[in-house]
């Protein structure tokens, strides 16, 4: 997937003008958020469940190196083959090589965000290996060559007419229909055929269990199970933070991820793999590979504060609760992960310079933090990234801020700590600020503050500030 995180403002502007997006965003996020809230409300104590989720993820991260080794040991004992990929290239190269070795013509894929991150599909296709996404939404997004609009509903914004036309063109839909069930059925028939002959399946991983060497996937369509059970070779790709200590912990994460994704108590399918097919078993893959992807995460891990971003379990609740995401949708964020989730993850994986606008495009309203089932404090991380960026920290791939801005805040802080200078500054700023004031209101300005005036006015700076009023009048009335 092409990385367009630098284009956030531009992409957002485009989406703000897109009537379809506007219509969609007015309706669906509120419905998804309400489902999520209802899903959580059926737990006996939702906030305790969230606190427990936060504790599990915090412990898993604190013990991450140890848990990963334990997972590898147990997975290997179960007959899985574990491959460690330092970055996207190593992960993709390994899978491509494996596919070539096995003489695979195409692979089917279960929905996997980490392979969106590594752009696996593009690489396989470049080397003549077809890729079929089998999650219905992901299938549509893939055929349209679009990034996911929402992590759980990648094509949720695509109108049904467009899906119909796409299916006529790409999968030979014979009778044009707008019935979603019929369209779903057409995709199902098409993909069943792919599953029937598939030689290699690629999936993601929702949770990896260290104590048992098990990987777990949740889904509603059954396509991941097909992708895992049909072919002789299964490759499951996970980013390295997905591991938890015990099966008990994993089950709690599933409890949370399903409720926060879709409001379900549990997804329609939950599949667990603890190794390839054994001699006396009738189905399952003959070979099962686990690819554990680092891609910059172990570097994030060194930083005790930024590490919290790795708690994320990709439920997507923060997207539909975010007032910014609810205006611009998923495309604006320019990569696999959108919304507050993307705003905390992308800067760590891609570096601060090329994700500037992501961690700045937040009002710090705290809605994401208030619903995150694993206790990520997104606003605090945004502030942390901004601070790292100001310092020009090379570990975070930051290149410092503009000279003018740095000068401005130096002046500001000096004046704010020096009352006479502050008061003098106020007196000097007033005539400039109020130059075009009418009826006590300023409605335009040039220079660095013009953004404000695009759609708003501001009161003229008071001729007598509160400070003056207190001194001249209020004080003595008491």
């Amino acid at each position: 997937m092409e990385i367009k995180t630098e284009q956030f403002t531009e992409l957002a502007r485009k989406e703000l003008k897109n009537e379809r997006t506007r219509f969609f965003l007015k309706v669906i996020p509120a419905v998804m958020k309400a489902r999520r809230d209802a899903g959580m409300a059926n737990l006996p104590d939702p906030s305790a469940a969230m606190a427990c989720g936060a504790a599990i993820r915090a412990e898993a991260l604190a013990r991450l190196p140890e848990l990963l080794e334990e997972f590898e040991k147990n997975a290997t004992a179960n007959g899985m083959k574990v491959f460690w990929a330092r970055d996207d290239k190593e992960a993709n190269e390994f899978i491509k090589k494996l596919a070539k070795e096995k003489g695979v013509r195409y692979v089917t894929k279960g929905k996997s965000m980490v392979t969106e991150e590594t752009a696996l599909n593009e690489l396989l296709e470049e080397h003549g290996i077809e890729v079929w996404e089998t999650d219905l939404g992901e299938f549509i997004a893939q055929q349209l060559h679009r990034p996911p609009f929402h992590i759980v509903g990648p094509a949720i914004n695509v109108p049904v007419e467009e899906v119909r036309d796409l299916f006529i063109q790409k999968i030979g839909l014979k009778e044009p229909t707008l019935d979603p069930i019929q369209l779903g059925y057409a995709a199902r028939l098409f993909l069943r055929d792919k599953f029937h002959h598939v030689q290699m399946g690629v999936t993601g991983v929702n949770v990896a269990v260290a104590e048992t060497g098990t990987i777990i996937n949740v889904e509603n369509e059954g396509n991941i199970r097909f992708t895992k059970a049909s072919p002789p070779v299964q490759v499951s790709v996970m980013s390295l933070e997905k591991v938890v200590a015990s099966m008990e912990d994993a089950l709690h994460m599933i409890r949370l991820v399903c409720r926060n994704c879709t409001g379900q108590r549990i997804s329609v399918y939950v599949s667990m793999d603890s190794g390839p097919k054994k001699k006396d078993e009738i189905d399952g893959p003959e070979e099962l590979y686990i690819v554990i992807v680092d891609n910059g995460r172990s570097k994030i891990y060194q930083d005790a504060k930024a590490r919290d971003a790795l708690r994320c379990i990709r439920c997507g609740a923060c997207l539909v609760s975010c007032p910014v995401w609810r205006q611009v949708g998923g495309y604006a964020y320019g990569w696999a992960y959108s919304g507050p989730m993307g705003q905390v993850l992308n800067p760590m994986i891609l570096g601060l310079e090329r994700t500037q606008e992501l961690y700045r495009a937040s009002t710090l309203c705290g809605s994401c933090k208030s619903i995150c089932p694993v206790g990520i404090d997104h606003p605090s991380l945004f502030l942390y990234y901004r601070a790292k960026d100001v310092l020009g920290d090379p570990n975070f791939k930051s290149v410092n801020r503009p000279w003018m801005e740095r000068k401005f805040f130096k002046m500001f802080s000096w004046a704010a700590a020096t009352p006479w200078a502050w008061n003098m500054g106020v007196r000097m700023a007033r005539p400039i600020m109020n130059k075009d004031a009418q009826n006590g209101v300023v409605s335009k300005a040039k220079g660095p503050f013009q953004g404000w005036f695009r759609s708003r006015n501001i009161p003229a700076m008071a001729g007598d500030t509160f400070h003056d009023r207190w001194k001249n009048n209020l004080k003595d009335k008491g």
Partner: protein
Amino acid sequence: MKEVSLFIPCTVDLFAPRIGEAVVNLLRRVGANPIYHEEQTCCGQPAMNAGYREEAKKVAKHFITVFEKDPVIVSPAGSCVCMVKDHYPEILEDEPDWFRRAKDLAPRVYEFSQYLVDVLKVEDVGASFEGKVTYHESCHILRGLGVSEQPKKLIRAVKGAQLIPLDNADSCCGFGGEFANDFPDISESMVKDKVESFLTSGADLLVLNEPGCFLNIGGYLNRNHPGKRIMHLASFLATNGREAEYGN
């Protein structure tokens, strides 16, 4: 008489001083004695939010020096209160003496409706208003301080006023300090939604208690719906809903 130190944020001082006057009037009305340190400036939030922690620290130290002897500090701005209570200890963590002083100060800082209702146990301040009022839940007041019932109690106690619900009352209005200026398109879309909720609520007046939201929503109304009225809670209570001019 109980002495209450006023923490008047720079937004109020410079752009909406009448909110500060209203706070003074109300505090006197309920029997408190407001005092004001003339050395106060800004809490440093703009620097903090832009990532300039060293600069914010400098401002924090000035603030602490000015206010630390006061037993009670009250402000008509939630986000500034959060800055002092939450962010001061965070940014001063590596300077033990200042950290202790910041920690010491934090529990004595109150948002104004919180102080009236939770500490002074006052709900009825003797105000009256004939009409329907709706309330916007500002982010830092609601999620930052957990204050939501207090302002509503104060509104409900106003004689003649009817508090009616606002759709998506807890959604951000799109202010976010520099956000409103740096992402004007997104911010506009957010404030437009907020105003739409207000217009469809059927309320005569939108009340809130965060100066940032007041400037943002008020600035949008002033430009696009000049007849529609918005007031800070303090102004609403102090003037019986009569003061509703946005400008100075």
